[in-house]
């Protein structure tokens, strides 16, 4: 698997997030590696495990994003500088049924 497609954006730029805030859903399609009648498509929801502020917008639905791509920037404080990203946001991720 090399990439996924943004399926739904669940939080907007400028929003405060807390542990348990759903951020986005990604559509993963493994058809290219395993083409079959019942397409191997899974929808994953990404959820924050910590508090912060969404400082940039997530990619719009339909955007193809590579594995490990940076999707958005979250800061601890509402107005913290964001030009020096220090680590990945702590998240949970699980398959869900399609919205």
């Amino acid at each position: 698997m090399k990439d996924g497609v943004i399926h739904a954006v669940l939080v907007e730029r400028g929003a405060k997030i807390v542990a348990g805030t759903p951020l986005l859903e990604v559509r993963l399609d493994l058809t290219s590696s395993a083409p079959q009648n019942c397409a191997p498509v899974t929808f994953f929801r990404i959820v924050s495990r910590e508090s912060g502020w969404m400082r940039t917008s997530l990619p719009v639905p339909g955007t193809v994003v590579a594995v490990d791509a940076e999707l958005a920037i979250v800061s601890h404080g509402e107005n913290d500088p964001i030009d020096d990203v220090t680590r990945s946001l702590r998240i949970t991720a699980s398959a869900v049924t399609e919205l």
Partner: protein
Amino acid sequence: MRRLNVFIKGNVDVHDSLVYSQVGGEIQWNGLNVLLAERFPDVVARMHHEPCARWDRMGIEEEAIPAELAERGLNLGALTLERQFRSKMFERTTDVVVLSILSDVGNALLRHRTEGYSFCATTSDKWSDDDRRWVKERFALGARLTPEESMTNLARVVETIRARSKATILVYNMSSVVPGEQLESPLGLDDALSTRIRAYNLELVRFARDHAVLVVDVDSVVARAGADRLKLDTIHYLRDGYELIAREALRVLESAGLLDG
């Protein structure tokens, strides 16, 4: 040669383990008959497969297909209206019926806003804008069922089958392992598929006790052998996964005495 007549009403899990699995045009696994040839060479399974929308849209009660839906000719992929409203389950002698929780775990139905009937559409991404508009005007998407609601529907299915057939009923549960999942907290993920599958599996245990159906414990056999090497994603398996599941189904058939000489 003795024939075992098997009617499979379900989707990729039951089809690809028992009938065949094909990936990229190549057969990966050739189903239950491979195993029968090895262990019971005087028995051959004659299998009939129909996809399943959900247990409340099985088509085994022979309802008429709603005229306006038939006339619209929506692309429903493998889940044709015939398969949703007019199953062929009772058109031939059946020794075994195989079902799975998969369609109930995953599928929601579209319900007509005034007529009340429902159908399943998993291929709406292939519809024209005009078809989407037509459906949206007439139908509302219902909720996915709770495990308890699903088992109430399964009870009706079992009752219908037993009224018309002496078939032994097998029900597949599902492996709850989701490749790629990181779920140390359920916050924001109350509807995680892995949790939903576990809840269905547990409810199926209760159902099997009360209704004397046999469970093909996919969850257990996949866990014992290692989901990471057997699963492609939540519902698809690699070749060895389908073989392992078929072996478990064969074991269940054998334990039920269906392969006795």
